């Protein structure tokens, strides 16, 4: 360091260096102090502040509600939507700030509140005096809801006034409430939402994520002058869904389910016209659900109202475990059981009981109410399983034809029963149908013929086809509540694949009873989906209810195309099934009563014995009809199931066919199908009466052009027909010689003592087995 030191350089002195070190020490001390302060804040208040941070995330910033998307029908008319409503909020702190200066303004605000909202506030027990008292006692409170769910129209005038006079301390909080303009329409399908906009049942649940949006937020913050300002992140509204449901068609379906109920309720037992009634209408070439309903329905705007339960069998939910003598649990908590009276008959909910359920504050009563409501809310058409019965006969035949095991030209001799695996399995016509062809097997619904067809097919092929047709499997329709299906409780499979231990396999008696739809369970949606593929050329479509998703601004986000899953049978098999099923509704078939005047339809009836607690009591039946139209070129299908009709003799498919007849009489003209068949004067008169009775105001059905000519020469053909009818009357069936039961008007079979239907000759209550072994009962059956 021997550089030249310039003249005037002042050196940093030792004293200064010392002071500098002192300075650094002071800085070090300050840092240590601040570090200690940081540590003390974290250790002393860390937990408390952490909670504060979390809590103010919710409370110090307000959320802005989103608008849930709408549910629209196929013509985009509204089935469900969210209406913006407003809560009236009083902020006493703001209202009373600078009390002296704003005296006039406070009075002005109170007067305005009284003028515009007196009625709405009085619903909460609030009047002007109450507010004055409140303000006196709670001058620092910031939030009190004076009135709830006000519509925009209600608050508009006040808002104008408030902004004109620059009033403070009263503001509105926006909210949305869910509204269902059609009330009960399609209640099972649409479902409803909880108060916090979460879908609970039906489409509201299935499409909750799509219908729901994202809440916005409003935050408070301070600007440079420490003034509190607010900033907003807007909410994102939910998307809307367009369904395949036609609300007019749906209304028609529900109308005639209701008519059925009105006609049959309270007939032999108290309660509804049937335990359950369900109807599905679909477009067979797309899998779209056009209508889906069950009775009873409920008001979507008030789903918790128990008065809609009236007529349903009451359920009891156990709120505690029930123990037997040994202390083992006999009945588990949460199990639901039907309420029975002394004579072991079901108890039905009366208006008084409903009132009691609605008005009780008791926790247990509430629990029971919920259990019963849940039974009403669920969608019978997709959630409930039952034995389908003869509706499945076309499936049996289709399997035989498609696998080449039968040609369709076979004939079978029905002696009234067939012995399978040591059991005599009877035909519904215990006297035997004689020689029947495959076609007649379907037309007359002959069990023996079906058993022969199934035996010719064999278990291996039969089981494979059943699975391919989706029997015992979920359809994956876009609605919640399909039960888990493929278990041995529902259906036995050839290789026992759906049994836990693998040992419950399909045996020859299974094959025999499956051939006419007994011994296994399915849902309505499953059966109609399988049947659709038999009549549309073998194309198996996944059923669906939603066809389009729209953004909140109304633009299309996604089109949901029909989903073709597989080919179940060949085109030629399908043609034959249509041909066979068309005969069911013709002279000599079981489903003639389903045909609407002027139309030709096809279909299949079903009457299935119910197994109650493992016993077939021959009292309880599920009757049904699966139909399609037009007969020659099917486009739509309809399936009606009546679970235990309220009548003495339940085993009569007419309960179902009448509903189908009624629905199609109004629905086919609405859907634009022209009449193809001649209409006699008598029929025309009946039709007019029908239209008048049920208030059908839509245009009467068109008659197809080329029919005009024939109508001109209608006289001759009518005569011919009359002649024919006369001939048939001469050829009286054997049962017409039986004695007539004075009570029901049915004939009595002198051999069995059973009643005989005067139209079809079907012997009511006829049983498959004379002596039914009670242990493995579910296999045997009578069938229509």
């Amino acid at each position: 360091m021997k550089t030249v030191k310039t003249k005037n350089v002042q050196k940093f002195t030792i004293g200064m260096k010392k002071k500098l070190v002192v300075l650094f020490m002071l800085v070090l001390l300050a840092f240590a102090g601040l570090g200690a302060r940081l540590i003390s804040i974290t250790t002393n208040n860390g937990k408390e502040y952490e909670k504060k941070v979390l809590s103010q995330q919710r409370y110090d910033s307000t959320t802005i509600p989103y608008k849930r998307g709408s549910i629209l029908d196929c013509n985009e008319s509204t089935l469900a939507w969210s209406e913006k409503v407003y809560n009236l909020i009083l902020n006493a702190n703001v209202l009373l700030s600078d009390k002296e200066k704003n005296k006039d303004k406070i009075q002005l605000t109170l007067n305005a509140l009284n003028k515009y909202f007196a009625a709405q506030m009085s619903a909460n027990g609030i009047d002007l005096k109450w507010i004055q008292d409140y303000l006196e006692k709670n001058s620092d409170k910031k939030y009190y809801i004076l009135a709830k769910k006000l519509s925009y129209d209600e608050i508009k005038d006040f808002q104008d006034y408030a902004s004109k006079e620059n009033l403070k301390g009263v503001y509105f909080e926006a909210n949305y409430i869910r509204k269902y303009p059609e009330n009960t329409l399609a209640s099972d399908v649409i479902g409803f939402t909880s108060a916090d906009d979460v879908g609970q049942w039906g489409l509201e649940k299935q499409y909750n994520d799509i219908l729901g949006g994202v809440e916005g937020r409003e935050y408070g913050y301070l600007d440079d002058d420490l003034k509190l300002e607010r900033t907003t992140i807007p909410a994102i509204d939910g998307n809307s869904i367009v369904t395949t449901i036609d609300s007019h068609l749906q209304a028609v379906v529900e109308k005639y389910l209701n008519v059925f109920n009105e006609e049959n309720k309270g007939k032999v037992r108290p309660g509804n016209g049937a335990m359950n009634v369900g109807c599905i209408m679909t477009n067979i070439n797309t899998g779209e659900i056009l209508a889906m309903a069950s009775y009873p329905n409920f008001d979507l705007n008030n789903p918790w109202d128990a008065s809609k339960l009236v007529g349903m069998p009451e359920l009891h939910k156990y709120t505690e475990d029930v123990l037997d003598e040994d202390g083992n649990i006999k009945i588990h908590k949460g199990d639901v059981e039907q309420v029975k009276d002394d004579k072991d008959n079901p108890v039905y909910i009366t208006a008084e009981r409903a009132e009691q359920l609605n008005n009780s504050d008791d926790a247990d009563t509430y629990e029971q109410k919920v259990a019963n409501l849940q039974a009403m809310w669920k969608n019978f058409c997709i959630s409930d399983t039952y034995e389908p019965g003869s509706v499945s006969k076309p499936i049996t035949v289709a399997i035989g034809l498609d696998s080449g095991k039968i040609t369709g030209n076979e004939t079978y001799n029905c002696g009234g029963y067939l012995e399978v695996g040591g059991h005599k399995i009877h035909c519904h016509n215990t006297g035997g149908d004689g020689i029947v062809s495959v076609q007649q097997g379907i037309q007359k619904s002959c069990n023996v013929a079906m058993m022969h067809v199934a035996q010719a097919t064999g278990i291996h092929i039969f089981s494979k086809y059943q699975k391919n047709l989706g029997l015992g499997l979920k359809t994956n329709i876009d609605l919640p509540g399909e039960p888990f299906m493929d278990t041995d409780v529902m259906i036995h499979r050839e290789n026992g694949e759906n049994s836990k231990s693998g040992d419950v396999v399909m045996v020859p008696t299974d094959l025999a009873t499956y051939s006419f739809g007994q011994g296994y369970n399915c849902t309505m949606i499953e059966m109609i989906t399988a049947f659709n593929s038999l009549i549309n050329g073998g194309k198996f479509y996944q059923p669906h209810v939603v066809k389009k998703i729209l953004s909140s601004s109304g633009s299309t986000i996604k089109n949901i195309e029909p989903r073709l899953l597989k080919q179940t049978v060949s085109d030629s098999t399908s043609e034959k099934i249509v041909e066979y099923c068309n005969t069911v509704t013709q002279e000599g078939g079981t489903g003639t009563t389903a045909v609407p005047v002027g139309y030709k339809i096809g279909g299949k009836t079903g009457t299935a014995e119910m197994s109650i607690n493992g016993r077939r009591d021959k009292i309880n039946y599920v009757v049904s009809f699966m139909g399609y139209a037009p007969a020659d070129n099917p486009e739509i299908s309809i399936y009606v199931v009546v679970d235990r009709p309220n009548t003495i003799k339940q085993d009569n498919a007419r309960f179902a066919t009448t509903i189908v007849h009624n629905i199609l009489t109004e629905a086919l003209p609405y859907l634009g199908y022209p009449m193809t068949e001649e209409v006699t004067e008598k029929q025309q008169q009946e039709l007019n009466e029908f239209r008048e009775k049920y208030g059908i105001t839509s245009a009467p059905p068109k008659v197809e052009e080329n029919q005009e000519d024939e109508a001109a020469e209608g006289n001759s053909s009518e005569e011919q027909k009359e002649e024919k009818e006369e001939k048939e009357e001469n050829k009286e069936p054997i049962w017409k010689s039986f004695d007539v039961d004075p009570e029901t008007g049915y004939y009595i079979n002198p051999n069995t003592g059973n009643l005989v239907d005067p139209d079809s000759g079907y012997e009511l209550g006829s049983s498959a087995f004379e002596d039914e072994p009670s242990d493995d009962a579910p296999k045997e059956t009578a069938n229509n």
Partner: protein
Amino acid sequence: MARTGVNVLRRQREREETYVDYSLIFVILFLLAFGLVMIYSTSTYWANLKMNGDSSYYFKHQFGAVFGGIVAMIFMSYFPYGLLRKFAFPLYATSVVLLILTPIIGREVNGAKRWIQVPVIGSIQPAEIAKISVIIFVAAFILRLQKLLLTPKGYGVAIGFPAFLAIMIRMCTKNLSSAIIVMGIAVIMLFVATPGYKRYVMAALSVGAFAAVTVLIIVNAGAKGSFRSERVLAWLDPQGHATGKGFQTLQSLYAIGSGGTFGKGLGESMQKMGFIPEAQNDMIFSVICEELGLFGAIAVMLMFLLLIWRLMIIANNAPDMFGALLVIGVMAHIAIQVILNIAVVTNTIPNTGITLPFISYGGTAVVFQLAELGIALNVGRNIGR
């Protein structure tokens, strides 16, 4: 610590460059990079709301300023600091002129005129220029007064000039905190330059007593106070003023407390979501506490301590008095701002708007602070000459 004997420059003038303080440079670069990360973390939410969805608005602006600041630092580190003596008075005068101009031609932001619009560069804060000019001016003035400084009159003059500047800042820009910092820098420089402790202890005690009395008066006066007095009340009882002046402080405390030992993780702060207003500014340290916890906060404080330590080393080894005083001024500036900022954030003192050097958002501040460090580096270069 000292690294010697590294000859970096090959210039025609045979100057022996013996000392480059790498650890100082490392600390500076670390703090700058860390500051940018934290600014991005704290400001994205805010920028998204305020800047039409440009979530990196504040980050981009600060990045530009940091780049400019580094250029200024490199330039100043080659600029012979001896020449600064000649600029001392012109700089002082310029600062005064700019401060006077501020209320007249200044740009109003949030109701306060603290910025002057300058073509090309953008807007600058005259108060920041005043801070660097007071360092250079006081250093030059002490050398000029020499022995005179020991007389009460000389000392009075030495403290009078910066005091005038501080009053100008308070008057013209209504910025009390910058005035306090300018005064603090001058006092610390004089403290080191003059022998004896007595008067400083006395001064400190009387300032403390004055503050205590003021606080007492304000507390007894109750709620009917002015803008500043409410800040004092909010300082004593932030919970009681949670919706007013205590809001920011309370939110900052919540942030610190909720961070815990290791924090919620980088970018995970909840308090920056509108609760701590403009979290990228004065209150950025509380978000550091929330996201990185006590660990991160104390690490940052240690980095600042290291920075101050290195500056002290440079000052102690400075080739001449002027260089030493300059470095002490820079050191005082940074120490005061860091200490006051953290004190505010932890509610140790009443809330005044003081930014955290190198980390808080603010273009002018970072450019001038880096320029100051450039001077310090230049002094460091000449050690051992």
